[in-house]
C-alpha cells in the first residue's frame, strides 16, 4: 500500500555528492521542478524533494509538520541536537528570543567597522599578487575571522580553526569511513575548545557572544554547559561555509559577467539590492526536514517519518514566483526571496551574512575593481550545499 503511494511521484536516483561544473546542479534542479512538484530520490535511505516555491514556503512555515529534529536526509535519527537549529516549539522560541538581540539588524550594524577591517586586511594580503583563489585566499578565511571576533578569540587562532573547518566540511577521498572519522574528530576538537572558552567566560565574562549566552534565561533557568557547547559548535558550522560559498558564487558571477561587475563598481549604492539578487539566484543551501504526520503535497502522499528536502534554489528559481527566475538581474526590486529559509527557523545569522557579503564586496571592488576568471579554470560544486570548490581569478596589477 505504502509502495503504491510512494510511486505517485517521479522517482530518481542521483548522488548529491557528485561534483559537476558550476551551474549544472541548478539546471538539473530546474528540470526536476518542471517534471513534478514532488520527486523522490532513492539515494541513501530515500527521500522526497519539494520543487516549487509555494509548497516549500508552506513547509517552512509549518515546523510542527516539517520538523527540524532531523535536518539532513542522510541522518533521519540524529544522535546530536544542534542548538537552536534542531529544537522545536517553545524551547526553540525561547532560544530565538534570547539570541535575537545579538543578531538583529541593529546589533549587526554595530559590527560593521570590525567586519570591514577584517575584510580589508585579508584582501590587502593578496591584492598586489595579481591572482588568487577566491575560496582559499579569501572566502573561507573571512567568515572564520569574523567568528573569532564575535567569540572574543584572538585572530592568531585562525589557522587552527581553518584546519578544523576543512576536516568538518571539506573532507574528501574515496573512503566514507575515513571522512566520517575525520569529521567526528574535528567536531569533538571544536567542542572541547569551546567548552574551555565557556569555562573561561564563566570566570571572566566579556562582551562576546559566549559571555552573552551565559545570561540567557529559559523560564527562570540559565543554559547548561552542554547546551552552550552545542550552540557554539553550531554557530561555527552554520556561519562559515555558508558565507564562504555565497561569496564564491558572487565573485564567480562577477568574474564571468563584466557588465554586472562594472555596474557594481560604478553604482556602489546598488550593491545591497544586487546582494539580494545574488542570494536569490545562487541559493545553494539544501535543508531537509522530517515529516511528523502523513501529508499530501500537490497530490503526492508523503508518509510520516519521511525525510523531505526543501532546497532553497527550488523556491527562489521557480518561474511561478520570480520573473526571469533563471536570470540574474542585479537591480531586481522587489525581491522577496527565501534564500535564508522562512518560518520560525529563518537563518538567525541572515543579517550578519548580508553585512559580511556587502562589506566584503565593497572592500574587494575598492581594491580590485577589474578581474576575470583565470584561463582554463573549471569550477565545480556538488548538489549538497557545498559551494564552488575553487574560483581562480586574475587581475592586472596597478
Amino acid at each position, binding site marked *: 500500500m505504502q509502495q503504491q503511494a510512494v510511486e505517485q511521484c517521479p522517482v530518481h536516483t542521483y548522488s548529491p555528492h557528485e561534483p559537476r561544473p558550476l551551474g549544472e546542479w541548478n539546471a538539473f534542479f530546474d528540470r526536476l521542478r518542471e517534471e513534478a512538484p514532488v520527486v523522490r530520490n532513492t539515494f541513501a535511505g530515500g527521500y522526497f524533494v519539494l520543487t516549487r516555491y509555494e509548497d516549500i514556503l508552506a513547509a517552512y512555515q509549518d515546523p510542527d509538520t516539517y520538523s527540524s529534529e532531523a535536518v539532513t536526509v542522510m541522518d533521519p535519527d540524529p544522535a546530536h541536537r544542534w542548538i537552536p537549529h534542531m529544537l522545536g516549539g517553545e524551547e526553540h522560541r525561547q532560544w*530565538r528570543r534570547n539570541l*535575537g*538581540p545579538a543578531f538583529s539588524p541593529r546589533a549587526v550594524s554595530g559590527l560593521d567597522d570590525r567586519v570591514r577591517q577584517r575584510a580589508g586586511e585579508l584582501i590587502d594580503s593578496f591584492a598586489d599578487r595579481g591572482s588568487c583563489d577566491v575560496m582559499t585566499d579569501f572566502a573561507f578565511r573571512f567568515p572564520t575571522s569574523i567568528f573569532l571576533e564575535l567569540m572574543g578569540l584572538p585572530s592568531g587562532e585562525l589557522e587552527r580553526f581553518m584546519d578544523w573547518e576543512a576536516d568538518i566540511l571539506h573532507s574528501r577521498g574515496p573512503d566514507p569511513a575515513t571522512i566520517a572519522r575525520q569529521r567526528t574528530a574535528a567536531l569533538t576538537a571544536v567542542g572541547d575548545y569551546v567548552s574551555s572558552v565557556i569555562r573561561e567566560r564563566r570566570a571572566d565574562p566579556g562582551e562576546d557572544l559566549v559571555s552573552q549566552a551565559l545570561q540567557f534565561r529559559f523560564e527562570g533557568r540559565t543554559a547548561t554547559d552542554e547546551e552552550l557547547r552545542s550552540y557554539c559548535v553550531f554557530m561555527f558550522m552554520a556561519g562559515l561555509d555558508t558565507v564562504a560559498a555565497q561569496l564564491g558564487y558572487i565573485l564567480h558571477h562577477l568574474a564571468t559577467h563584466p557588465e554586472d561587475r562594472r555596474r557594481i563598481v560604478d553604482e556602489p549604492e546598488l550593491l545591497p539590492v544586487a546582494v539580494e539578487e545574488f542570494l536569490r539566484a545562487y541559493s545553494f543551501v539544501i535543508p531537509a526536514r522530517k515529516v511528523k504526520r502523513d501529508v499530501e503535497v500537490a497530490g503526492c502522499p508523503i508518509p510520516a517519518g519521511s525525510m523531505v528536502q526543501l532546497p532553497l534554489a527550488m523556491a527562489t528559481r521557480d518561474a511561478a514566483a520570480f520573473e526571469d527566475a533563471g536570470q540574474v538581474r542585479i537591480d531586481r526590486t522587489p525581491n522577496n526571496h527565501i534564500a*535564508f529559509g522562512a518560518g520560525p527557523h529563518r537563518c538567525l545569522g541572515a543579517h550578519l551574512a548580508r553585512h559580511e557579503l556587502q562589506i566584503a564586496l565593497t572592500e574587494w571592488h575598492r581594491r580590485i575593481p577589474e578581474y576575470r576568471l583565470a584561463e582554463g579554470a573549471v569550477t565545480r560544486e556538488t548538489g549538497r550545499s557545498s559551494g564552488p570548490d575553487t574560483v581562480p581569478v586574475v587581475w592586472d596589477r596597478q
Partner: protein
Amino acid sequence: MQAHIDLNRCSGHARCAAADEEVFQLDDVGYALRAEFDVPSGAEQAARLAAASCPERAITLTD
C-alpha cells in the same frame, strides 16, 4: 493607507525595515513591532515595496 502585519508569520527577515525603518519599526529581537498602523502620507511607495519584499508574505496594505 493602513498596514497590517501578521506577527505570527513575521520571522524577522526585516526586509520591511530595509524599505523604511521608521514606518516598519522592529523590536529589539529584530521582528515587526506593530501589527496595525497608519502609513504616513508620502511613505506609500516604501510601504508597497516593504509588503512585496516580505519573504513570509506577512504584510497587507489597505487603502
